Structure formats: structure tokens, C-alpha cells
């Protein structure tokens, strides 16, 4: 086995989707396509289409979920694929695992590909755990003989011996995942595609699963493509990383650098020029915001420095002491988490500067996405009010400096405290 042995090669992979309620085409588009084809012309809809940016509104009905993806994977490599929601990661995995075909381009492979896109696919709740191992294994491409020979190992790894002859509908969701992962972990394809499996299951099982995947790649010499939002898992597992953004590869290289690149890409800088849905006289208007962490191009992280910097237009040069500026920060569910205002402090705004900056030395929002509503008053009169003006992401961070991360389910905000024992 040589180190230059390329096992998988993607060439010019693109994937086009049609937006709206119908999938790839209604009857009229189909007929038009067919008409072009019988005349030997190119598909007219392949030319249109825009890059896949979820947040901006486009003019075309067609969108490129992936565009010109080229990469190679060597045998035994663990490739991490990272990117924001909607960057095209899952589409890429779907193409790799043959679930859907690319619109253009080819993928060449020297090995069998098996995918773990959400484990437990094809589990039938009426069948027992044992029967489901066979069914699921066969769906994933194993023969009955292969499964029989590994049955004991699979059952032992899942830790569900006791329930193995009970229908899986009586299983807890955690047990189902354990069983499903166990089946998949004993697959022996040359290339394994894994998507976010580790999101479920308890901490003990997650550790076991990551360990198993490391074994697969290191000892088994097998190739793994791993997609995750969990940067810690990516860092501990992968040997190389690809960062996808809006459907194209933005970065390819060592895992550590890829993760850094991803975090940078995620810091928010946004212009307000295009926002129409705002209330107020408009005498003073916001025109730009940057949200960042430690440095200008670093994603905000829990426990680290956090900055929100607003620029505003003030054509009438109203004195800053006549301005009042409030921010409301909501969580993903629209629940107000915190309200920040210039009015909390006496004389916080003065002079004629055009930038308002909110700084937090040690950010105590937990990881997640937050939505900000801005409210600007000039001369006692509403000037610029934008509901949900922008959102920003906070990355997981070690707030307490103890290495102990607090789940965002348990705690949306973090605070400093002491624990004491007194007699």
C-alpha cells in the first residue's frame, strides 16, 4: 500500500436543485427539457441558477447546492468535511453514497462505499433486535454470512444483549442508536461515510463510537469521510479537512487549519443597506455590523472576548448624546435572552463618532445561534428599529477554564459562581 494511493476522486461535482414546492421540475419544464434534448441541445435549466446562499433572496428558481467540487482522498485517510448548515455537506455525502446523482461531474472510487447517514435506517420496529441486525446489515450491503460471523461482536458492542430478542419498538431511542451504530461499525467497506452520528447517545457511547472510528481508520486502514458540526470530534478524528461554503470548497488542508478557517468564516459582518423591513424616521440609520471574538476575524466563543460593532449614518450630524441605542438578543426559539442598552450607563454616548461598540470581556452566552433586534432613538424619536436584524453564532468554549463544557440544553447562559461547603 502506497501513501499516494488515491481511493476516491471527485471531479467537477455539481448539484442543482429547484426551489419551491416541486422538486426538479414541473411538467412544463420537463417538456421543455425534453424538447431541447431531442434537438440535441443542452438542458436549458443547467445554465441558470445561483450559488447556494440560504440567507439572501435570489431571483432564480434554481440553485446550485454544490458547484465544481474537486477532491481526492487517499487510502486510510480520515477526511473531515465541515461547513455551516446548508453549505452542501449532506448533499455531497448523498452523492458519495449514491443516494442521489450529481447534476454534472463524476466520482471515481476504488472501494466499496458504505454510508452512515443517520443510523438505524431500515429498522423495523416490529422486528426484534437480532432480526434488525440482519436486516440493517443487509441494507448496508453485508451478506447474511458476514453478519452471522460478526453477530456476537455486534451484540456485545451495542450493549443490548438483554433486549436482543425484544422488538425494537420497545427500545429507548438511545438503545436503538447503539444497536444501529454497532451494526454499522462492523461493516467492512473500504470507504465509510459518517454524518453526525455522534449527536445522539450518551457520553459513554459517544466516546466508544469515536474510539471505534479511530480504530477503523488506523488499524483497519480504511478511509473515512466524516461530516460534523462538532469541532472537537473533527479535531480528534480527522487527518485532513475540507471547508465547504455555499456549495464550493473554500479550504482544503490540515484539520487544525481547516477548523480555524471554518471559525473565521463564521464570524458575522453584515451590511444593513438591503434591509427594507425597518421602522422609524430614518434620521439616523445603522448601516453595518461586525460581530467577532478575540480578533476581528474570529468566531465568538463562549468565555472569550466578544465584540459587536455598529456603524451608523448620521447625515444631520445629530450629537451622539441625543442617541439611544438598544439591542435585544433572542435565542433560536425567539425567546429574549438579554437586553443591552446605551442608556444603562450615564453619558455613554458623546461626541461625533460613527461607530458604536458593545464589548463583553468574557462572553457568557452558551454555544448556539442568536438573533439580534436593534432599536435606535434620536432626539426622543424612533429613528431605526429592525426586528431580527441579524444573527450570529457562538462557538463552544471553556467558560470556567476547567475543561468542563456545559451543554447548551442545560444552560443557555453561563455565570461565574463558587461552590462552598460550610459546617
Amino acid at each position, binding site marked *: 500500500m502506497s501513501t499516494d494511493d488515491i481511493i476516491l476522486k471527485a471531479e467537477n461535482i455539481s448539484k442543482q436543485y429547484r426551489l419551491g414546492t416541486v422538486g426538479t421540475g414541473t411538467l412544463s419544464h420537463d417538456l421543455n427539457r425534453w424538447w431541447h434534448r431531442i434537438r440535441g441541445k443542452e438542458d436549458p435549466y443547467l445554465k441558470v441558477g445561483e450559488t447556494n446562499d440560504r440567507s439572501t433572496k435570489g431571483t432564480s428558481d434554481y440553485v446550485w447546492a454544490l458547484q465544481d467540487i474537486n477532491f481526492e482522498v487517499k487510502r486510510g485517510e480520515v477526511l473531515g468535511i465541515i461547513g455551516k448548515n446548508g453549505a452542501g455537506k449532506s448533499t455531497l455525502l448523498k452523492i*458519495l453514497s449514491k443516494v*442521489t*446523482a*450529481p447534476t*454534472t461531474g463524476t466520482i471515481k472510487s476504488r*472501494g466499496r462505499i458504505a454510508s452512515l447517514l443517520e443510523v438505524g435506517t431500515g429498522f423495523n420496529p416490529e422486528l426484534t433486535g437480532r432480526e434488525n441486525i440482519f436486516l440493517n446489515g443487509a*441494507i448496508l450491503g453485508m451478506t447474511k454470512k458476514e453478519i452471522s460471523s460478526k453477530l456476537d461482536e455486534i451484540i456485545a458492542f451495542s450493549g443490548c444483549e438483554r433486549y436482543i430478542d425484544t422488538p425494537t419498538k420497545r427500545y429507548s431511542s438511545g438503545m436503538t442508536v447503539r444497536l444501529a451504530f454497532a451494526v454499522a461499525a462492523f461493516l467492512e467497506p473500504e470507504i465509510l461515510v459518517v454524518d453526525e452520528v455522534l449527536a445522539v447517545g450518551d457520553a459513554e457511547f459517544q466516546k466508544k463510537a469515536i474510539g471505534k472510528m479511530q480504530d477503523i481508520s488506523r488499524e483497519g486502514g480504511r478511509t473515512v469521510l466524516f461530516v460534523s458540526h462538532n469541532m472537537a470530534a473533527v479535531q480528534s478524528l480527522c487527518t485532513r479537512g475540507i471547508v465547504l461554503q455555499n456549495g464550493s470548497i473554500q479550504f482544503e488542508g490540515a484539520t487544525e487549519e481547516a477548523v480555524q478557517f471554518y471559525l473565521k468564516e463564521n464570524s458575522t459582518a453584515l451590511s444593513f443597506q438591503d434591509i427594507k423591513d425597518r421602522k422609524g424616521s430614518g434620521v439616523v440609520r445603522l448601516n453595518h455590523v461586525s460581530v467577532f471574538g478575540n480578533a476581528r476575524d474570529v468566531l465568538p466563543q463562549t468565555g472569550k472576548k466578544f465584540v459587536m460593532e455598529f456603524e451608523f449614518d448620521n447625515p444631520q450630524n445629530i450629537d451622539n448624546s441625543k442617541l439611544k441605542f438598544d439591542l435585544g438578543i433572542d435565542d433560536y426559539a425567539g425567546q429574549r435572552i438579554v437586553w443591552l442598552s446605551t442608556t444603562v450607563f450615564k453619558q455613554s454616548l458623546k461626541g461625533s463618532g460613527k461607530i458604536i461598540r458593545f464589548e463583553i470581556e468574557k462572553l457568557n452566552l452558551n454555544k448556539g445561534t442568536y438573533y439580534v433586534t436593534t432599536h435606535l432613538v434620536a432626539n426622543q424619536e424612533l429613528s431605526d428599529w429592525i426586528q431580527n436584524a441579524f444573527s450570529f453564532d457562538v462557538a463552544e468554549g471553556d467558560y470556567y477554564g476547567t475543561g468542563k463544557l456545559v451543554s447548551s440544553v442545560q444552560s443557555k447562559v453561563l455565570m461565574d459562581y463558587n461552590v462552598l461547603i460550610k459546617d
Partner: protein
Amino acid sequence: MKSGNNDQDWLFEIKPKNQFFRLHLREVWQYRDLLFLFVRRDVVTVYKQTILGPLWYLIQPLFTSVIFTIIFNTVAGISTGNVPPFLFNLGGIMVWNYFTSCLNDTSDTFKKNASIFGKVYFPRLIVPLSIVISNLVKFGIQFFIFIAFYIFYAFQGMEVKLGTATLFFPLLIVLMGILGLGLGMIISSMVTKYRDLTFLVGFGVQLLMYVSAVMYPMALLKEKLPQFGWLIEYNPLAYVIETARYMLLHEGLISIGGMFYTVGVTIALFFIGLLIFNKTEKSFIDTV
């Protein structure tokens, strides 16, 4: 290092479109264990947590036959020749049921399995194939009840007329299965985009029964409604059911020309179905 990037080195390639005539039948064979497990799952799970279990397979054709006998033979007075009307109906319904369950179940393939198909790849053809086979198991169970009634009527004095034609009965059932599979594959592929077809299939199959000689002999319709005779003449299903009755009960006409026509239509539909299905499976997940 082995010689570099020769294209022959690659185990497989993923391309935008399937080549039209590459049907991946070898791959289907590699996945034969999955086929078997799907059949098992279909047969075993349907009647889990029911009291009567597989007896339900028998209850439906029995009751339908009783009702058909009352309505069509007793009330409407359709003659079934020398054969007891109940046995005549049971035979027709059995074969007809096999066709409709193959058609109905396969025509749902993509829609019903979208969640599995959306996550993992295996040759999609396995699913309709498994449906046709598990329905064959169901048909086998129903066939036993037919034999039981046949023996019962034989003791009652019905003349037992079985000939060499009877030996070809299994082949006829396979033909029926392939016909259902072919049509089902065509419909399932089109349903992924145009859901209208689901409704069409729903009542279309019901209407089709009336022109497929299920509850009357072919000759009867031709005699009573000569202007609609062509409906039966061109309906391959009518030939299959009529021939099935001839094989089992020696009742009705067997037409060599009609059988050749049926086999031709079946093979044509099956291959068209296979081609369309093969084309759809590549990207249906985007349109379903």
C-alpha cells in the same frame, strides 16, 4: 506505487445519469440476501400483534368470493358452466388479487421507501422484487384454500378435469407477477413527480377488474356486449385469468394467440418498467 490513474483501475464511477441499458442486474444478485430479508420482513410483520395472524390472508378472498357468488351468480344469474360458481369466483379472485397487490404495492415503492432510499444505497430494484415475491407467498397460502374447496366440491360430485395445461399454472402466475411488477415500476417512477397517478391507480384498478373477466367468463361479455368485446380482446389480464381458470377448472377458452399476445405485452411492459425505474432511481430523491 501501482500504475497511477488509469481509468480501468476504478471499481466504479458515479455519474449524472445511468446509461440506458445498464441495469445493474449483477448488483441485484449481490444483494440477494437483502431480497430474502425484505420478503421475510413483509410476510412476518404484516400480521404481528393480530389474533388471527396469517388467517387474514384467507378471510379476504373467501368473503369476496361469497359476495360475488351471491351478487353475480345468484342475483344476476351469470352462468359459470359446469363449475360451482363459488369455486369459479375464488379462482378468479385469487389470481386477480395477486396481480393487484403486486401492482398496488410496487407502485408505492419510491414514495413509501423515500426515507430509506434517502439515506443508503442498495439496488432499488430489490424492493419491488421483494414485494412480488412476498405476495407470491401470500398467494401460495390462498392457493391452499382453493385446493381445499376443490377437493370438497370433487367429493360433492364435481367432475375433476385436470390436464397437461394445469402443469403450466405456476408459469402463468409468474407471468402475472411480472405484469404487475412491470406496470408497478412504471407507475412508481412516475408517481415520484406526479402524485396524480396515485389516485388514478386507486380507482383504475377497481375498474379494471370489471373488464378482466374476473367474475364472468370471457365468452359471456363478448356475447352480451359485442361492441365492447375489444375491451377484453386487448386486455392481457383477461387472458391470464381466463387461462388460469381453464388450467384449474377446465372452464372457458384457451387461446394460443391471446397467450402469445399476453406474453408479448408482459415482456414489453416489464422492460419498459425496468428502464424507467432504472432512470428514476438515480435522482428521485430530489423530486419525491
